[in-house]
């Protein structure tokens, strides 16, 4: 059964140097607070898995947490490039990073295979694409019934999945509403899991057929209000588009990025203090 503990303790207990980490949330419910905590604890040589390594992995890569990145789309949605991601790949700053890239359909299938206890997933993928030439996790398999040659893609089984959700009850049952992305598959594919939630409630009041992850499959649940900022938590707060745009300027230059992270993330105790530190910050509004 999920244990409800502070985020700092959950990260400290499960994330070590060299861990294989999947932090998911498809444009919605991105676990930023947990990402910051990994940065504060200065974990190194992580393999970071994420379909869309947007601002959260840009921050972690720029702070030197990662030696390997597994992904399918690396951009700042609606804004442009991820400068720390690009600098790491193009210029090995702050350290070299190995990449393994897939398509969204493939990553989704890999999580499903991992969650299903299968060694690989099958999809009709990458026809005519160069991606498989550069990725040994993508092979082919012949259908025993039709003879069709299909893509075989290696299952994902991260050490730890970290996601954010709207709420949990006191047994750690978690309710997710809105865009549900790949969160359940990521959790079920991983050996351990951490779910940060907006609030812990006595009764989830989940409608029948709601998207609920039972607490008994989770390792830790942590209450972190606002923990998906600057992404959004449907029903709680909206995406902070101004921050996402401001990130383009903050992250473009190595020095500006480093001093921003030092001041707002390394220099703050927790996510609440991080949010406070942004008050009145140069044109960056927050929810």
């Amino acid at each position, binding site marked *: 059964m999920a244990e409800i503990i502070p985020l700092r303790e959950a990260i400290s207990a499960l994330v070590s140097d060299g861990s294989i980490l999947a932090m998911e949330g498809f444009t919605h419910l991105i676990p930023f607070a947990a990402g910051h905590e990994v940065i504060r604890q200065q974990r190194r040589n992580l393999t970071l898995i994420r379909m869309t390594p947007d601002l959260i992995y840009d921050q972690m890569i720029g702070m030197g947490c990662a030696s390997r990145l597994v*992904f399918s789309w*690396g951009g700042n*949605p609606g804004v*442009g*490039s991820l400068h720390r991601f690009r600098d790491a790949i*193009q210029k090995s700053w702050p350290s070299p990073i190995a990449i393994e890239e897939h398509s969204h359909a493939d990553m989704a299938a890999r999580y499903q295979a991992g969650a299903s206890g299968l060694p690989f997933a099958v999809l009709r993928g990458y026809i*005519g*694409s160069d991606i498989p030439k550069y990725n040994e996790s993508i092979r082919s398999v012949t259908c025993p019934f039709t003879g069709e040659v299909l893509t075989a893609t290696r299952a994902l089984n991260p050490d730890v999945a970290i996601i954010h959700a709207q709420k949990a009850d006191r047994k750690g049952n978690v309710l997710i509403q809105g865009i549900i992305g790949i969160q359940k598959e990521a959790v079920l594919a991983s050996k351990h899991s951490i779910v940060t939630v907006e609030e812990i409630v006595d009764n989830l009041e989940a409608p029948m057929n709601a998207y609920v992850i039972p607490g008994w499959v989770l390792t830790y649940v942590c209450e972190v209000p606002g923990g998906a900022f600057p992404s*959004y938590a449907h029903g709680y707060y909206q995406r902070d588009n101004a921050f996402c745009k401001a990130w383009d300027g903050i992250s473009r230059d190595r020095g500006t990025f480093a001093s921003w992270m030092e001041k707002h993330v390394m220099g703050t105790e927790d996510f609440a203090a991080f949010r406070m530190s942004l008050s009145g910050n140069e044109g960056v509004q927050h929810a």
Partner: protein
Amino acid sequence: MPEHAYTSTEIMTIAAARRLVNRQVCFVGIGMPSAAANLARATHAPDVVLIYESGTIGAKPSVLPLSIGDGELAETADAIVSVPEIFRYWLQGGRIDVGFLGAAQIDKYGNINTTVIGGSYALPQVRLPGAGGAPEIATSSKEVWIILKQTKRTFVENLHFVTSSGHQPPATTTLPAMQRKPIRGRGPTVVITDLGILMPDPITGEFTLVSVHPGVSAEDTRAATGWDLKVSDRVEVTPAPTPVELNALRDLHARTAAAHGSTGMDV
């Protein structure tokens, strides 16, 4: 600007929007495809079904989403499904009429690069965002439309990297069997740019100029193409935007700017 004047981006978006037929099912990429698809929904195709890869089916946003996972897409969708489900049941399952994509670069066969430019794959000069959903959207949709601005940097003779497949050149025999498999749909059937409209030659698959936007010549378009662009012997002129189309598009952008503090077109 005078009431009847319009920008090259506006006519590109409008020319693309016109192609969507009411009740078609369109898998929408973010940016220009999303603007065109929502313009179609706001004008002649109110019941077009817009699917975003975040799992929102039948989204009806009142403003252009900034990302493929904006909350308004969820609030206005007929259904919200998981990411594996959208790709497996809805795309791979053959339920998409039009896969509508943007691109960083294309070649004459409609192959798309959104991965790397220059250098090597491991150490590129420019690292682009990568594939996203495009490799499978490009090959599992019944047809594919591509929208991008036309320059020698975006319309290139040789792609550094093929992220998502277009038509296979007849002489491509070095590809492994997996990649020689014919795609399920018709592949890219149209490329809409800020200068004109290109369609593939039915035999060779090579994209050919079939329409130029008003005030643009075939020579202008050839000059903005990195390969020796073929021109149809019956090149048409794209009808100019109507006031209804222009007003609808500008309203959409104005509402978007008010909601996001941006035009949604600055990607």
